């Protein structure tokens, strides 16, 4: 499982943005379908987007915890560019941590319209 790795790799790096992409797709596709088919009430859509958002944030939080560990809990500062396995670890961990922050913000921004928009128009 990607979320329980001893060492980081490109897959752990890609997990948070992948979650963001899936969440984004889900929100837009779900809203498009609901507005085309059942525009009368948006409550179900809101609930679905809320649950998807919580799930996405939870995965990103776990990925972030793991990335924090891979980074060595910030024991030394970037740029982590020495040609050693340890610096490779720290580099990937730190990059993943930053991507986690970006993805979390993006997921929240993507879900915000569902919270505020009142109707399909």
């Amino acid at each position, binding site marked *: 499982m990607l979320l329980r790795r001893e060492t980081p790799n490109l897959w752990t790096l890609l997990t948070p943005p992948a979650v963001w992409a899936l969440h984004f797709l889900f929100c837009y596709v779900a809203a498009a379908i609901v507005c085309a088919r059942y525009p009368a009430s948006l409550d179900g859509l809101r609930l679905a987007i809320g649950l998807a958002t919580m799930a996405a944030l939870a995965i990103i939080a776990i990925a972030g915890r793991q990335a924090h560990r891979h980074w060595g809990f910030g024991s030394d500062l970037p740029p982590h560019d020495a040609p050693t396995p340890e610096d490779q670890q720290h580099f990937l961990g730190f990059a993943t941590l930053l991507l986690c922050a970006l993805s979390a913000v993006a997921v929240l921004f993507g879900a915000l319209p569902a919270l*505020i928009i*009142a*109707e399909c*128009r």
Partner: protein
Amino acid sequence: MRVAGSLAPGVFLCACSGPQSALDPAGREASEVATLFWGMLAGAALIWLAVIGAAVFAGRVQKEPIGDRAGLRLILWAGAVIPTLVLAALLAYGLRLMPVLRAGEASLRVHVSGEQYWWRVTYERADGTRIESANELRLPAGRPAEIVLDSADVIHSFWIPALAGKLDMIPGRTNRLVLHPERIGTYRGVCAEFCGRSHAYMAFPVVVLPPQEFEAWLAREAAPAEVPATSTTDTGAFLANGCGGCHAVRGTAASGTIGPDLTHLASRLTLGAGMFANTSENRRRFVAEAETLKPGVRMPSFGALAPAELDAIAAYLGSLR
């Protein structure tokens, strides 16, 4: 330099008012947009000052480098946290505006269809009766009006900067815009999506009237053309040259729907979709040279007609009040 300095404020002020300015709002949505614009301008100016200030501080005042930790903290706060918070606030503010602007029970519905290069305008009253018009939009002040937008050919975009933001007119799709005109006056709307060679000549006047005046105008617009029966203004030349195949003049045999409805042409402010002042001279010229004046127009030029016949047509058009 001094001349430029004293001219500059004048130039900016000119650009802020007038019939086609989003910064001189006459409707609810345009007011919100203008407020947002000024707020964002002020915020952007503050951020700019802070960034330039930091650069000056780093270059002139404190010449020693700051520590790694402090540098990272600066990047974290000024580069990530604060921009994210500012964007989140703007996003929430903008999203919160949308339902407010779209809502409102409109008693008046106006269908506007974009066609290369003019506007088909149909007023629909609360009882469902429809009134055909073209190339001009009149609205009652202080009442919401629902504008139903579509297109007959390519994508156009409906934009009255003084009243609201723009909305695309897409073939095969119906878009809705609710306008809340608030200030009485005459404004200018434009097509805001490139739609062909005469795109720049696709505009229309917007007249916001006091509600009673609007009702009186709509009643006049609904009536057929009343043409004084004099020899110079009969329908003969108009019908004989096939104008009625494309244009409708209600109350006569002319019932074409390819071109704009001409029933009350002479009472419109402009001619050729906002292109010319609606004078008798321009009407004659438009009929004679439509294809040269407005490239790509779907109306043939009638310049080959005998001058007397053109005069008769122009006089007839001028009588359509």
